[in-house]
């Protein structure tokens, strides 16, 4: 397994024209790149970043903290990839930013705030970016009476295990209720925060470790309720040369399947006005837009209203790409814009399918007193009465 992503990006980065389509929504109604909208200098558009990176490769520029900061002030939400008009190039934009961050790190210019992620994660007491003592999940296994080996592994992810435990518990209850043959493993961080911030040093070891744990559990399928873990397990592990040998699903996919096959049915009414926020790691990064909507539509009594910017056009919550830890104030400002948009729908409940989005949207909800109930869709389902059919 290689420890670095492909170096090809150096030979294509000059192909960005800096035409600026990447800054917008589909209809051009507004700038949809959080970084450009905040910092406003052309430097902070994806085109600006591509040109800086090319300048660095070409030795027109020298690495400095200021330049590295420009590369890091981006939640890598993928709006640029979505709106770039160059089909042969657009798919690489976020990868190039991440690869350039790795160069920044190697040159000693990873910003201080983000360095914590690596320090905490590599600490053998933690193996997670929150600096919490590692949980081997044996308590949970006991509590839920889970086997040593099973068809499925529920990969909890650090945010759900150490911050959004409600989501973890809701997922566990749902899987149990639905009679899924699953177990848990002693996880290391999936390494999403490290890859996103270019700190790839320990990534291959962690990938190996997690894959071995999953294999040892005899699982052929992995499920996760975390959009970040999902993207990383499904997309990045292979990019780092790993051979998974198992399939990766988001919990939403399993719920949708069970609903469709009639294995579960939602019985109780949920009479609220609800809107849905597309997590970037699930939407633009993984193309999963309809799964959550199909689930929502199967809930009796729900009134679902879309935000103006939805699906491929969604405004990012601002937590990704190391922005939450690197730029905490700006990060919640980005979420504030999302909540203001959610207000326009008349919804009282804002749901999503990513613990990271949930954290940031909740932080903004509290800080700006926006009065929403913010809840992960899995938790929402868990609150409802469900009929299980064999």
């Amino acid at each position, binding site marked *: 397994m290689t420890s670095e992503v492909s170096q090809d990006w150096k030979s294509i980065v*000059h*192909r960005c024209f800096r*035409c600026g389509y990447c800054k917008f929504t589909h209809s051009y109604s507004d700038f949809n790149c959080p970084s450009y909208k905040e910092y406003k200098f052309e430097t902070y558009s994806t085109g600006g970043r591509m040109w800086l990176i090319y300048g660095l490769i070409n030795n027109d520029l020298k690495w400095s903290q200021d330049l590295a900061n420009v590369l890091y002030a981006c939640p890598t939400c993928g709006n640029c990839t979505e709106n770039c008009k160059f089909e042969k190039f657009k798919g690489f934009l976020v990868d190039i930013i991440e690869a350039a961050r790795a160069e920044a790190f190697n040159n000693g210019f990873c910003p201080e705030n983000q360095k914590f992620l690596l320090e905490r994660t590599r600490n053998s007491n933690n193996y997670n970016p929150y600096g919490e003592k590692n949980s081997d999940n044996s308590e949970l296994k006991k509590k839920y009476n889970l086997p040593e080996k099973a068809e499925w592994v529920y990969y909890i992810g650090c945010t759900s295990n150490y911050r959004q435990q409600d989501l973890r518990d809701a997922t566990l209850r749902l899987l149990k209720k639905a009679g899924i043959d699953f177990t848990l493993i002693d996880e290391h961080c999936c390494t999403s925060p490290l890859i996103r911030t270019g700190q790839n040093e320990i990534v291959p070891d962690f990938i190996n470790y997690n894959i071995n744990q999953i294999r040892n559990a005899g699982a052929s399928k992995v499920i996760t309720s975390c959009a970040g873990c999902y993207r990383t397990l499904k997309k990045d592990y292979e990019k780092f040369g790993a051979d998974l040998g198992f399939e990766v699903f988001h919990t939403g996919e399993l719920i949708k399947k069970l609903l469709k096959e009639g294995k579960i049915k939602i019985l109780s009414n949920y009479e609220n006005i609800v809107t849905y926020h597309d997590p970037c790691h699930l939407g633009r990064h993984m193309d999963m837009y309809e799964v959550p909507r199909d689930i929502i539509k199967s809930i009796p009594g729900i009134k679902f209203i879309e935000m103006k910017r939805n699906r491929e056009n969604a405004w990012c919550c601002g937590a990704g790409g190391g922005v939450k830890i690197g730029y905490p104030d700006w990060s919640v400002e980005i979420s504030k814009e999302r909540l203001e948009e959610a207000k326009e729908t008349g919804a009282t409940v804002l749901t999503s399918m990513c613990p990271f989005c949930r954290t940031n949207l909740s932080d903004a909800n509290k800080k700006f007193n926006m009065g929403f109930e913010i809840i992960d869709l899995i938790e929402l389902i868990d609150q409802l009465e469900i009929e299980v059919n064999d």
Partner: protein
Amino acid sequence: MNYLNKDEILTQLEKISGRDFVSNKTGDLFIYSQDPGASESRPVDFVVLPKTVEEIQKIVKLANSEKIPLIPMGGGLTLSGLIIPVRGGIVLDLKRMNQILEINELNRYALLEPGVTTGMLKAYLSENYPELQPPIPDAPPSATIAGNMLIHGSGSLSQKYGCHSSMINGLEVVLPTGEIGKFGSCAVSEYWFSKGPIPDLIGLFTSAFGTMGIITKISIKLFPRPKFRDMIFGFTKGFSDLPKLMSKITFTELAEDIMIAKGDVPEAYKNFGMLMVYFAGNSKDEMEFKRKTIEKIFKDHKAQVVPLVGKARERLMAEPQYGAALAADWRKGGGFEYVGSFIPLEKIPEAIEKGTTISRKYGLLTSLLFRLIGRGHAVMFSVTFPFNRSDSKDMINTRKGLEDADKMILEIGGIPWKAELTGQKLILEKMDPNFKKLFNNIRNIFDPNGIMNPGNWEVQ
């Protein structure tokens, strides 16, 4: 001569516009010292993003006392380096001044700040005034309305209504001395509805490339948006009949936009011109009538109509036509520049012949485009030069090609449009000496310290 050192100037600018909106950081200066075209990079001292007219006035006063050049910038997308300073100085990126101040539906105008982008105005009207449309170019949506109007831009309404500069009703300008000037009906009335009837000084600011002041408000004409829009696509064999064919179509008064493209690929199409005629209407019957009438003219002139479907149709119907940007990847190199020009209609065949010769001389796939302006009163003609930014030889080749194309256009009686520095020099060489003298005198009156985008339109 400068009196303050750079740090002191930075401090002054920060006092005016706030620290977050002033920069002399290496990365920012690097980006603003270039544009996506083929111009060489040229140094920038500061980038400022002002928010108000008052801030701009203060910056202009500072620039006068320190004799620092000021370069106004909208989207920075002309490709001809017009927003890259020639003598250093302050780039004024106007994107924070992005308010749509008024849409006057009945009198059909929009009053805008200079940072309003073509994309945003289009989306705003579609959502709030679906019966109106703005004149926009096929430039990427971050091009500003002001930047485009000020350079004699053109777009999908230009054949019917004229080039975009002719659609300006009024301007508010921070003049190079820092005073505020109002031009057009707004100088007399609270309505920004018309250029006249007073002496028309608005022309002093169009194609001036930021040398006459900083436009802080612009009123533009809006146009009805018919319910349906469609196009006829076809080919002509040979080029000599094109002026007559085009003229015939304009005489019907039925077309919104008329374009001709000429390429070398595929080989079999080398001697063909590709025709695109756009039309619009409010009923199916009206559309049918227009289609039949225009197609008959195609037939009379032995032009073949080809039905377009799928991605090709989607691209050509898009507003803006995003396909225009894709030339930047033809040489897998992240850029292109075109010599645009205004030529008389009768010169289309000659322009095709000479444009093709130049493209081949420089080893390029020929890519020529014509867009009729104002019912055939002029034609926008362009020769496109895609390049590979990572290949310095290719860049030199491109710059030479652009110069050759400028010369060719002047030779056939056309005028390079939004010309880069070399093109401007060539135009000035051919320009009537009295025009030049008068222009220079006016410029000196407006801008006694020569602070506005110096190096452009420089009459020696």
